[in-house]
């Protein structure tokens, strides 16, 4: 009985680990157009951002090629794609930038426009934004 309990708890724990117990759900990755689609969305997002007078100042001293690569990796991984994010954690990469709440929203809007331009469905847009929104407190006000 005791052994059964332990193994049940172990099994339950393992099944709760993301992406371990069941096959990886890559439906969002597919809906975003795979790696190529995500890279295009990120590129458009970054162009929209540096076109936006509210937030362009955050990008003046940024290596845009590296940012594009890391952000694409991160979104690919979040969306269930076959990528591994190799960048810094969100707190480290945004400390000292002084990203305001309005700046964060402006970036969301830059990404929404990019997804519109790449014909990403409303539901896929919602899924991606819902994965990114929890990072708000790791990015804003640092």
């Amino acid at each position, binding site marked *: 009985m005791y052994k059964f309990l332990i193994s049940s708890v172990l099994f339950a724990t393992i099944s709760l680990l993301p992406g371990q117990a069941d096959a990886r759900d890559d439906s969002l990755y597919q809906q975003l157009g795979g790696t190529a689609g995500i890279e295009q969305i990120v590129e458009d997002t970054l162009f929209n951002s540096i076109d936006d007078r*509210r937030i362009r100042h955050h990008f003046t001293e940024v290596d845009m090629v590296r940012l594009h690569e890391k952000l694409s990796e991160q979104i690919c991984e979040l969306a269930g794609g076959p990528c591994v994010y190799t960048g810094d954690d969100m707190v480290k990469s945004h400390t000292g930038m002084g990203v*305001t*709440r*309005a700046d964060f*929203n*402006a970036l*969301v*809007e830059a990404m*929404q426009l990019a997804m519109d331009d790449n014909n990403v469905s*409303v*539901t*896929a847009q*919602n*899924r991606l*934004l*819902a994965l990114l*929104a929890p990072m*708000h*407190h790791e990015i804003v006000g640092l």
Partner: protein
Amino acid sequence: MKKKMIQGLVLALAVSSSAMAAEGRLLATGGATSVEGSAGGGLVPWAVISGYTEDDEIGGTVAVTRAQVDDYRLDVTAASFSFRNRLEVSVASQILNLENLGTELRQQTFGLKYRVAGDLIYGDLPQISAGVQYKRNTRYDLPEAVGSQRDSDWDAYLAASRVWLAGPFNRTWLANVTVRATRANQFGLLGYGGDLNDSRELQVEAAAGMFLNRGLAVGLEYRQKPDNLGFAEEEDAMSAFVAWFPSKNVSLVGAYVDLGSIAGANNQTGYYLSLQASF
């Protein structure tokens, strides 16, 4: 009246075309203008702060609203001022035309709403706001004749609003619950307190909506109301709405409203239209 409305709209358009326009929040997060002037849906004040003010921004809204039901027509002119994503000050002027009696009721509402905690979209806590509405009848003969106890009063409310970016069906959903202490009769248009009851009661108001895309939402609202006057039963109000936000400068809400029985006239249903400009 008409002149005031036009002045308000011209002012709003002039201000919104300047570089001062508040735009720090996402589309639709300021809600629409409710019949009492507070940001919300149509019938219910929500926890949202009007307009799109975030961080240090200031802004506001002006709105005109008409509700036409079987025997009555309500016209509302409202304006709000918002400071950061924190404080909202509002004013609304309501005229209820009693079409069968050839007369009208008038009410002014001054509102204050303060975001106490949380956020509509981000973080773990829903957006929670506390508000007060000071209301007064500027024509009191009819309310007094049907048993109203005073011609001005306060409502106080607590509201919680939350958005789920990818809720059921991977659509964006919004829910709001408001609890209001009030003794207003028919939103206050028939005075405050009555012969049956003269103390404030807690009333529950709620809204739920789903965004078809980020500029278009459909939803339902419900507002519980007191029943203080002996001369006629007062019933709760409901609406089914479509809200369209083509930009951060303008929004349009259309709804089907069921206001129940008003002053003895039963089944008052009809349409509701509200146009808002934000700056």
